[in-house]
């Protein structure tokens, strides 16, 4: 089971239903939409990828396999941008 955590140099802030992430080393920033924001919150709580998908399935009226695919895509992007790292 893969668990990620925010990169130590990343700070975040909620902006209404989105979250803005800033990498303090690169000064690059990213905006997560509401689903991405939900994933980020779960991830920040230390949940593993499977648990994040389970939580999303409860929160959103959507197909679990689609949510799992969305979560996987986002986690890959976040990891590639060095916004998260494996715990």
């Amino acid at each position, binding site marked *: 089971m893969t668990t990620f955590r925010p990169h130590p140099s990343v700070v975040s*802030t*909620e902006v209404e239903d*989105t979250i803005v992430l800033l990498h*303090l080393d690169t000064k690059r*920033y990213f905006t997560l939409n509401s689903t991405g924001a939900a994933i980020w919150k779960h991830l920040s709580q230390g949940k593993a990828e499977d648990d994040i998908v389970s939580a999303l399935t409860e929160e959103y009226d959507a197909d679990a396999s689609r949510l799992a695919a969305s979560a996987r895509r986002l986690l890959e992007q976040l990891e590639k941008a060095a916004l998260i790292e494996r715990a």
Partner: protein
Amino acid sequence: MPTRYPDIMPHRDNGVLAERRLERLMACLPEDEAALAGGAAQVEDWPALLRSALDHGLEDYLFRRLIRVGARLPEALVASFRQVQARKAAWTLQLAAQLDRILDALTAADIPAVALKGPLLGERLYGADGFRSSSDLDVLVPYAGVRPALAALAPLGYRADETTLARALSGDHNVALDSASPPLELHFHLFRRFGVTLRSDEFLARAAPYQTRSGRVVRILTPEDEFLFLCVHAAAHSFARLAWLFDLKLLLAKHPALDWDLFLQRARDWRVTTSVAFACALLRQRLGADTPLLSRLTARQRQWLSVNERLFDQAMRRYNQPRDSFSDKLGFFVASNLYQSSLHDQWRSRARFLGLTALRALQGRSLAPGEA
């Protein structure tokens, strides 16, 4: 009457009508959402309003509230606002993270420090309703602590050469450190303007602990001191940003039990009553926020306040007109400096300011910070 703000934002285009609209909308906030919705229904030029709100540092707070009350904003404008908002969020994160590092460094060096304005004021006053506009960070340390503070901040990249430092220490209230980002203004006096110096020691001694949202305990000015500082700061910059008056309005809302007798006494002691009273008068005029201060002024002070207002309006009127000819430029120069001098508490200080201004103009120089 057009009363566009003068002095420090020469890049602005002429957005007087949008600026008046902005004032009327901000006067509804933070509490009257029904009035805000009513005001929003009368807005015809949304892009101009957004530009004006950006100029005045209020776009995030205002447009969040407009969206919340269901104002019918053009989609393209909302998209544009969202981009601005994300950039501002990222910048605020950067400011906040750097402020933490700065305060940590100063604490480790055992230097008392107080964060002024900036993201911390935004957190306390704006809360979840928006990000406060800040272009840099401001931190107050004791006058005697400047050099140790610079040594403590050097690992963060903040440096000042000896000439700059000596010039700042002799005439200014802060040393501007822009060798790292975000830039830092290291204050060793709270402020220096209108012929007086608000020395740091007393304000630092009274500073109160505050626990930030992230759980860190920092020191901030007491509400009375903060109100005084924000008034003097806004007056020194000719109230060029409506956000500076709105900060005062939010501070009043947060501290309804402000000790006005104590406040007035401190303003008298520091000889900044005139600038503070004028800030309160503009706060009422532009944002509809009343303070008990104005009713506590003497008859003579109230008379002088009307002189301030007339001179301010004169300066604004001339500022808003084209100034192509020499006589137009001279008229604005005289009006703006008479207005500035009128904010000094004492005649001697007013005369000195005007004399120095005239002398420096003849020399082709501007006033040094300590001369204002």
